[in-house]
């Protein structure tokens, strides 16, 4: 029989049948071995294998001083820091084996390992650390570390394996700086856009932007027996749903920062989900108008306090964070030198109190449209959120619903990263002034030394986008200067107490909940680790 004799109906049916058969034959190909099919598991770490980690964003470059969330995949794979905090905030040796501060707390001398080589084979020496410090001190190259090294005056090599870092004043958070600062090979400074030379457990093998970032084992790594893996790959997913599905179906071995809403779904699917350190803090930054805009509603402290009374933290943790969080009114954890129990319940969810403050401030609904107004201006607060973290928009939506009941309109505006930055930080065109009323965001590093909070842009005394003219609440800058320049615990507590009271009273920062980074992994992945800042460490990871 030839095609000449086939009727059109048969041709059509045959074509459709062939398509179905082709699809079915491929679809029914053997599935990958399941967990049950795996042979007997051996005890202890196993060497070899590849770990594929899903991420929510690709890295931007290999500059270790760029501390944005997107940099997390490469930081601890390619680079090492001088010291590293463990989970209990003890200082652990890394490239430095010993450290000694002078009596005044204005310098620290570090003894460096003598058995470390860079990925290009050159020996690691003290001058490399000096050049990294010098790089951090220059605004153009220091990236996010630059803001943290404001008190550093310089570094000096004492031979090949000792370095002294000097500070202009006692710097109680000096080890926080050493903890986050990864050391890059000076010869790579000009090529950090697409390559890295570090001393870390993995060497860069390949980076296809937007597709995959692969590291291979550093055979000359100084830490004996590490890393266990042959390779670790990071795959960015544009679609969060695709990331979670890839985990469920075993396409990837692990994932960083899965959305809170998928926490239970992954547990139900047999995926292990670990909580990170919880060092980040969901909060709402309140932007008081510039002094030349006195008509802005938030220039009145009572309106800001009304927002502070309108935060239903329990509902937010329950509905927006799906239980993955811990409500807090203050930005410091209970072990912190800046934590005061009597301040920890300063605000609660009390819409009546909020409404009374708004009445007192003269914001009332004169035209009966459900929105308060004053001098013909409606009480509408522009609230920006981060698109890449959908829970921030959910927080904004809960606030919108609650404040609508007391006549305040919350205009929630989710922004992508490139748009969020200029609004959050301000631009030269806005004279460094942030462009929002409320910003649902998260801040970090205050879980280490409390001064870490004041490296975050809204609250830093220098170039704050919410106080671009330096018009901070009275006493704020002065008390911070005291707290940041002494090691004396009582003096610091007194200063932090005053700063805490100022922040609560002025309502420029509304802490909501601790943010736990969720690390998900298949059952055969072990030793997945992270720093106190939730940056992934793959050097201790092994797969069965």
């Amino acid at each position, binding site marked *: 029989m030839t095609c000449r004799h086939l009727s059109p109906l048969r041709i059509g049916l045959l074509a459709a049948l062939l398509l179905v058969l082709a699809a079915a034959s491929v679809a029914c190909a053997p599935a990958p071995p399941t967990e049950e099919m795996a042979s007997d598991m051996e005890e202890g770490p196993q060497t070899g294998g590849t770990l594929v980690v899903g991420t929510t964003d690709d890295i*931007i470059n290999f500059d270790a001083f760029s501390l944005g969330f997107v940099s997390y995949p490469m930081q601890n794979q390619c680079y090492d820091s001088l010291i590293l905090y463990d989970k209990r905030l003890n200082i652990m040796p890394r490239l430095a084996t010993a450290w000694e501060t002078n009596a005044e707390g204005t310098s620290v001398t570090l003894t460096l390992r003598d058995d470390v080589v860079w990925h290009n084979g050159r020996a690691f020496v003290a001058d490399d650390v000096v050049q990294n410090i010098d790089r951090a001190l220059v605004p153009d190259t220091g990236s996010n570390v630059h803001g943290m090294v404001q008190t550093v005056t310089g570094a000096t090599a004492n031979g090949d394996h000792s370095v002294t870092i000097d500070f202009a004043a006692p710097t109680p958070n000096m080890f926080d700086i050493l903890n986050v600062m990864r050391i890059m090979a000076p010869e790579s400074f000009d090529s950090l856009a697409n390559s890295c030379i570090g001393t870390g457990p993995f060497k860069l093998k390949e980076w*296809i932007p937007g597709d995959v970032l692969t590291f291979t084992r550093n055979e000359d790594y100084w830490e004996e027996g590490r890393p266990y893996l042959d390779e670790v790959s990071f795959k960015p997913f544009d679609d969060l749903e695709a990331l979670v599905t890839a985990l469920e179906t075993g396409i990837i071995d692990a994932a960083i920062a899965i959305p809170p809403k998928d926490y239970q779904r992954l547990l139900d699917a047999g995926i292990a989900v670990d909580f990170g350190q919880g060092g980040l803090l969901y909060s709402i930054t309140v932007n008081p108008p510039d002094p030349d805009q006195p008509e802005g509603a938030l220039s009145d402290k009572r309106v800001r306090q009304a927002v502070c009374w309108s935060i239903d933290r329990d509902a937010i943790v329950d509905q927006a964070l799906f239980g993955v969080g811990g409500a807090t009114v203050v930005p410091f954890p209970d072990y912190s030198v800046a934590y005061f129990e009597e301040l920890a319940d300063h605000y609660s969810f009390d819409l009546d109190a909020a409404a009374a403050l708004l009445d007192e401030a003269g914001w009332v609904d004169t035209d009966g449209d459900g929105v308060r107004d004053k001098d013909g201006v409606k009480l509408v607060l522009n609230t920006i959120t981060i698109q890449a973290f959908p829970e921030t928009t959910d927080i904004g939506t809960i606030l919108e619903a609650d404040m609508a009941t007391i006549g305040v309109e919350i205009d929630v505006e989710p922004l992508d990263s*490139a748009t969020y930055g200029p609004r959050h930080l301000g631009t030269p065109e806005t004279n460094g002034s942030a462009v929002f009323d409320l910003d649902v965001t998260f801040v970090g590093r205050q879980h280490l030394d409390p001064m870490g909070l004041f490296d975050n842009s809204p609250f830093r005394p220098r170039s704050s986008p919410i106080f671009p003219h330096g018009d901070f609440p009275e006493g704020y800058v002065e008390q911070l200067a005291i707290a940041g320049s002494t090691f004396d615990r009582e003096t610091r507590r007194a200063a932090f107490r005053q700063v805490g009271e100022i922040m609560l009273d002025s309502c420029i920062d509304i802490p909501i909940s601790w943010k736990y980074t969720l690390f998900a992994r298949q059952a055969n992945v072990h030793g997945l680790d992270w720093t106190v800042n939730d940056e992934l460490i793959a050097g201790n990871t092994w797969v069965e």
Partner: protein
Amino acid sequence: MVVYALRRLVQTLPVLFLSSILVFGLVRFIPGDPAMLIAGPDALPEQIVAARARLGLDKPIYVQYAIWLGQIMRGDLGVSILNGYPVFDLITLKFLATLQLTAGGLLVALCVSLPLGILSSVRRGGWFERLTSLVVALGQAIPTFWLGILLVLVFSLQLKWLPPSGQVAFSQKPGLALRLMILPSLTLGFYSATVLTRFLKSSMLEVMEMDYVRTARAKGLAETGVLTRHVLKNALIPVVTILGLQLGAFLGGAVVTESIFDWPGLGRLMLQAIGTRDYPVLQGTVLFVVTTFVCVTLITDLTYGFLDPRIRYQ
């Protein structure tokens, strides 16, 4: 025909020039600042200013355009302002993946539309035509993202037959590469399949009413011969136009499909470049897509001559 093709090629130059202005202008109108991404989340104002200067974003927009156009004239699409990768290399890399997905989507579109279009026109008024109309209506109404997610839920999560996302080269793992292609190809091809089915059916019905078809039947030709040699061949001409447009769209990168299935093609490259405001990558990719679309349209036009010798190119 060669002269015609050359003339059409020359005509594309002003199109590409105007496209370059449009692309450059539109990209710069997107709010956002790549310097902020490079400077980091808590950058100081002076760091942002320095990053802008380093990227050349502090220059007037017409100067930036002139610099970019000069590069294009020299065949250089520039480098990514984020990672320093040559834009041309990035496009080449991603285009291969897009080409692979295009082939899959096209195969689905043709394998579905040809039998459905032919049979529903031949079996007019029957249950098959009604069923086809329903499928066509559904196919044009269902959003691509919804279909993609649904396919993943059913075939990956529930039945566990197919992997949900990713892409590998055929040269590395042909079996896995084929399995990874099925769901995105179905998602991409289904809409086009329904569009083509509708056009093929109406075109077939129109041609079947022509005098020469009646003559062919009167001469005693078998129905199969009448349909394949006289009806289908002539009915395909408008279908080829639609197919060309669909092909151009596929090659331009299926942004939604590529995102759902984590397919590293041109669509995702553009999406990521928009997200990071990587201007050179975005401009270069869009210009490449426009050029591809123009070329596909030209090839489509030239195809008419093969299908209908009466068409002459002047």
